[in-house]
């Protein structure tokens, strides 16, 4: 086995779909939490193959999408400083701040560098001892240990010219915010497999018990997702609400202890603002006291930058699963991946970009348009 092709097998996918069609008798509303799962569902048209009435709504699990505008503006402010090298993931380059984005700053001469791994920022800092190197790292629990490693290594190696601008968010508080909302429609959840590979499964057990909603920890390939949907449908039809692990080949109950220890050492839980959703208590992480000296917001005195979000984008409704991208009046016209109004159109894992990329902008106005007026 190579653990990839097998889970893209059409024949196996079809047998799972046939099982679903036999099991599912009701119009269940399910949510996939992670943007990577959204990408697969939309890419393969899986959400359009479900039995009549069953619906997938797309969750808030795209960290690029939920990074607040003011953090983007802080990254831009740093990138505009001549002494700074701003290092980040490719996804962050075109996320619109309040006035511009990092790619434009780079085009105007800012030293902005795209990297594949946070490890690269350590190399860049060592090669440029007279410059300030800032790693701009966002992410959920999956990416937190890799980003934490930047501060951990900077401290270990005594790198005084390396710091971290971070906007880390946590999945369980966001799920809890959705499930406790009076407007919640979600009856079953596919939990993010790679987040659980790091954190383990206990936080989701708690959510199942508290909200009596079935949760299946799911993988990212078409067969994985169809199997997770089958497992959720079976639970719902049988009146069960349990935590099940579809992605058992990669997710262990305890997660990755070493990664958890690193996160606990370098970060601490804090209140965090989510783009489109507003501030949620204890829903993010910042550098802990012992690593505060590597916090770019403090080092460069950026804590005062406060920005309101653009009004036209309905990302708040999309990130809560209350609207689909095609219901936005700007979708595919004033908002495209080349010229995005909001973050869900920027990241490939954003629901809007996935709908746009996979031909769901072709036209028929089959859903009622939604404006941003309702807000979150």
């Amino acid at each position, binding site marked *: *086995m190579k653990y990839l092709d097998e889970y893209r097998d059409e024949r196996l996918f079809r047998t799972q779909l046939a099982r679903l069609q036999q099991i599912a008798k009701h119009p269940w509303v399910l949510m996939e939490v992670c*943007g990577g799962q959204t990408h697969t569902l939309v890419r393969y048209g899986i959400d359009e193959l479900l039995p009549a009435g069953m619906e997938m709504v797309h969750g808030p699990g795209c960290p690029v999408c939920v990074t607040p505008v003011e953090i983007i503006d802080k990254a831009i402010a740093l990138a505009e400083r001549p002494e700074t090298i701003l290092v980040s993931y490719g996804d962050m380059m075109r996320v619109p701040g309040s006035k511009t984005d990092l790619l434009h700053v780079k085009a105007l001469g800012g030293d902005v560098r795209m990297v594949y791994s946070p490890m690269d920022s350590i190399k860049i800092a060592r090669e440029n001892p007279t410059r300030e190197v800032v790693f701009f790292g*966002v*992410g959920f629990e999956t990416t937190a240990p890799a980003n934490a490693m930047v501060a951990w290594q900077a401290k270990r190696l005594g790198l005084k010219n390396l710091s971290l601008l971070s906007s880390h968010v946590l999945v369980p508080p966001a799920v809890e915010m959705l499930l406790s909302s009076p407007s919640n429609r979600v009856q079953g959840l596919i939990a993010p497999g790679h987040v659980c590979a790091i954190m383990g499964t206990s936080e989701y057990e708690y959510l199942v018990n508290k909200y009596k909603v079935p949760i299946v920890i799911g993988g990212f390939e078409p067969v994985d997702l169809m*199997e997770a949907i089958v497992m959720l449908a079976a639970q719902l039809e049988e009146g069960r609400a349990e935590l099940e692990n579809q992605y058992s080949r*990669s997710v262990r109950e305890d997660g990755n202890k070493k990664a958890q220890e690193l996160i606990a050492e370098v970060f601490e839980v804090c209140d965090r603002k989510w783009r489109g959703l507003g501030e949620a208590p204890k829903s993010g992480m910042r550098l802990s006291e012992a690593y505060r000296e590597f916090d770019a917001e403090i080092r460069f005195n950026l804590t005062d930058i406060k920005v309101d979000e653009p009004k036209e984008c309905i990302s708040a409704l999309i990130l809560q699963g209350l609207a689909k991208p095609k219901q936005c009046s700007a979708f595919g016209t004033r908002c495209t991946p080349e010229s995005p109004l909001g973050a869900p159109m920027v990241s490939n894992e954003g629901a809007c970009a996935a709908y746009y990329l996979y031909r769901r902008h072709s036209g028929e106005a089959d859903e009622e348009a939604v404006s941003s007026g309702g807000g979150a």
Partner: protein
Amino acid sequence: MCLSIPGKLIEKSEADGILLGKVQFGGIVKGVCMDLLPEANVGEYVLVHVGYAITQIDAAEARQNYEYMEMAGMLEGELAGFPDDARPTKIDAEKIPHSGEAMPRDGESS
């Protein structure tokens, strides 16, 4: 952002106090950091996220799950007279990447 890719660990080493590894993804070999997964052995499959191996893939668990899915499909097909009309209409073979095809999201950080 949470995209992680499975690959086979083919070499382990250490440099400057950092555990490193070489992981084979199809025909490509990339250097990764093994600091978060020091217990992984050469020959095992690992999931790699932004240059870090984050978890081992449990081969026995994967095979058991795969066989269970195949068997469940066969059983239900036999019991129900596997329905031709239950076949999906919108998915087609071209959409499913073939073995050896470049991974569609390779190179993105997400």
